[in-house]
Each structure stands twice: as structure tokens, then as C-alpha cells.
């Protein structure tokens, strides 16, 4: 009986707090019925348990404690899937837009090729005659510059000088131009 006492005694707190399985509880009960020493210790454990659990603990302010608690980290937890969802949505839109662009481009090319195959482009070729060109530019240029006489060459150079678009002098500053226009020195 003495050999099993320590093991049995270790179960007393579990017995009084109702944590033992029914079979272990029955084993404890059977043992203390036959062992006055263990019965006395079990009585002490029972009294101690009753004394401390019936003890009126200082009241605590539950509402104040809860108000002092930190905010749940739910925002952090929720943000991650939100960002992922947004990212996925954005990616989906990009994929859809790319597919749509490719499809529209393909259709356009197909249609264009069909049109071109059916109807050759009506390109109006304008062939300017030398006489027309001379009339348009005011210059009379023959087929070859070597054929021009000295006088004709000089006339052509003079005409080219008149066509020089580069101003011969730098532009006046805007302010001084305005002052000049207003007659102010």
C-alpha cells in the first residue's frame, strides 16, 4: 500500500478538481477507504480547494480591462488579401486588354488585307512636266545644268538667293522691340 501512496496522492488535486477519468476516480476512492493516512491528506486537499475557490477574490473591472486592450490585428490580416485581390484584378484587366487589342488588331489587319485584295488602291499619280514645275517654282530649269547658259545660270542663282529663308540678322530682343515700337529708348 505504501508503494502506491505517492502516485495516488498525486492524483488528489485532480480528483477534487474533477479532472480524473471515472476509472482513476474509482481507484482513488477505493484506496482512501482502505488507507486512513491518504484519507486524511485527501481531506486536507479538499479543504484547501474549497477554501481557495470559495474565497472571494478582489473584484476586477472587466469593462476597464477590455477598454485597455490593444486593437485586434484584423486590419493587418485583412489588408493582405485585399491587396492581393486588387493585384489580381489589375492583372486580369491587363490580360483582358492585351487580348482585346490583339484581337482588334488582327481583325483590322484581316479586313484591311481583304479590302486591298479586292480593290487595288486608287493612287493618283501626278506627273509634273518640266514646264509645270518651272511655272510652280518660278524657275526655269532645263534637263541638265550644264546646258544652261551663263546668263540662265546667274538668273537661277539670283532666284535661289531670293528663296533663302535664313534671316540675315539675329532677331531683336522682344522688350527692346516693343520699346522701339512704342518709341521709348
Amino acid at each position: 500500500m505504501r508503494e502506491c501512496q505517492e502516485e495516488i496522492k498525486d492524483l488528489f488535486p485532480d480528483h477534487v478538481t474533477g479532472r480524473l477519468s471515472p476509472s482513476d476516480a474509482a481507484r482513488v476512492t477505493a484506496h482512501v477507504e482502505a488507507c486512513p493516512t491518504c484519507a486524511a491528506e485527501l481531506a486536507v486537499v479538499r479543504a484547501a480547494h474549497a477554501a481557495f475557490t470559495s474565497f472571494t477574490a478582489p473584484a476586477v473591472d472587466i469593462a476597464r480591462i477590455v477598454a485597455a486592450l490593444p486593437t485586434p490585428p484584423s486590419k493587418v490580416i485583412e489588408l493582405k488579401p485585399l491587396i492581393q485581390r486588387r493585384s489580381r484584378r489589375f492583372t486580369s484587366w491587363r490580360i483582358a486588354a492585351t487580348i482585346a487589342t490583339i484581337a482588334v488588331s488582327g481583325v483590322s489587319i484581316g479586313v484591311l488585307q481583304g479590302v486591298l485584295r479586292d480593290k487595288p488602291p486608287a493612287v493618283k499619280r501626278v506627273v509634273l512636266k518640266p514646264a509645270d514645275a518651272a511655272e510652280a517654282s518660278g524657275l526655269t530649269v532645263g534637263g541638265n545644268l550644264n546646258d544652261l547658259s551663263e546668263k540662265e545660270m546667274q538668273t537661277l542663282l539670283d532666284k535661289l538667293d531670293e528663296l533663302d529663308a535664313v534671316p540675315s540678322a539675329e532677331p531683336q530682343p522682344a522688350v527692346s522691340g516693343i520699346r522701339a515700337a512704342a518709341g521709348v529708348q
Partner: protein
Amino acid sequence: MTGVRPVRKGVSPEPDGAASDEAIDRELIARWLAGDQRAATTLVERHATALSRFAAAMGGMTGSDVDELVQDTFVRAFNSLESFRGESSLRTWLFTIERRLMLDRRRAERRRPEKMPVAEGDAASEYTALDGIVADEMQERVRVAVDQLTALQREVFTLRVTEGLSYKEIADIVGSTEGAARVHYHHAMRAVKEYLGVPHA
């Protein structure tokens, strides 16, 4: 949250709702982490009394000291609730935090150069094991006997007998080994029995 609670020798793995209590705590923690503030209220309601009782049983604190200590325990616990892995029960974890805070305060008290004079009203409001006197004489005598124990013996004895914690859980709380917790308990029990005049083998 997926920890396995150690099974005690001779104790049913799921004794009388202890496992379901832990499951409820885990569910409430998950709800709070998901943003449910009401879950916090329920968690505080479930454990505040045990924490208050344990703090008062250790003695040397006024009612407002205990209230403040319990609040600090919950604030500390909730600040790191995301890292709670559930390897022990939530209550064991809370006791561990509360005990550390108590030790910190005792050390701070010792470092304090001079103590303020204690008014009569304060002395009267200080909780000791004699407060809340129980009707049964045996219970009252047990409480006085527990007051005679060392601080560590009192912690181990109270956690074992009042809360029904295992030696492993107690060892986790007091920062000791399972074997040492068992020895402290038996020494405490011997001292209590001697005080009560109960014969021991």
C-alpha cells in the same frame, strides 16, 4: 494555435471539459484576431477571476493592486496573442505572465528607497489568505497554514490544489522543472499537514 497539451499520468486526456475549455479559448482567440472585440470581453470574463484569486492568494496586495495587476496581465497577453502557439492552455499562459509581473513588482518594491507609511485603511484593504473568511474551520486553518509557506511553495500548492494544474504546467509557470514542482508541492503539503496536526506517513 496548434499545440498539444501534455497528457498527465493517471489523468484522462479530456477530463471534464478541460479540453473543451481550451477549445473555446482557441476559438475566442481566433475570433479576436479576426477583429471580433466581443471575443476579448468573453476571454477576460473567463479568466479574470482565476487571475485575481491567484494574485490575492499570494498576499501582500490591496484590491486595487490586484485589479491593476490583472489588467496589466491581460494587456500584456493580448499584445502578444498572435504569437501564442497554444502549447499550454491559455490560463497557464496567463498565470505565467501574471506571476512575472508580480515578481517584477516585488523587485521594484524592494528597490524603492523608502516606503510610504501605510494608512490604516490601506492595511485593512490588503488581501491576505485570511480575507473572505470561510465558514468551515478546517478551511480557515488550511488558509492560515498556506500563509506560512514560502512564496514558491504557496504558488505551487495554490496552482495545484485550486486550479488543478499539472506539475508540468506549474513548472512552466514558475520557471522550474516538473520534478522540482512535484517536490515543492509535497514539501508544501507536509508543512500544511504539520500545521494542522494531520499525521503523515
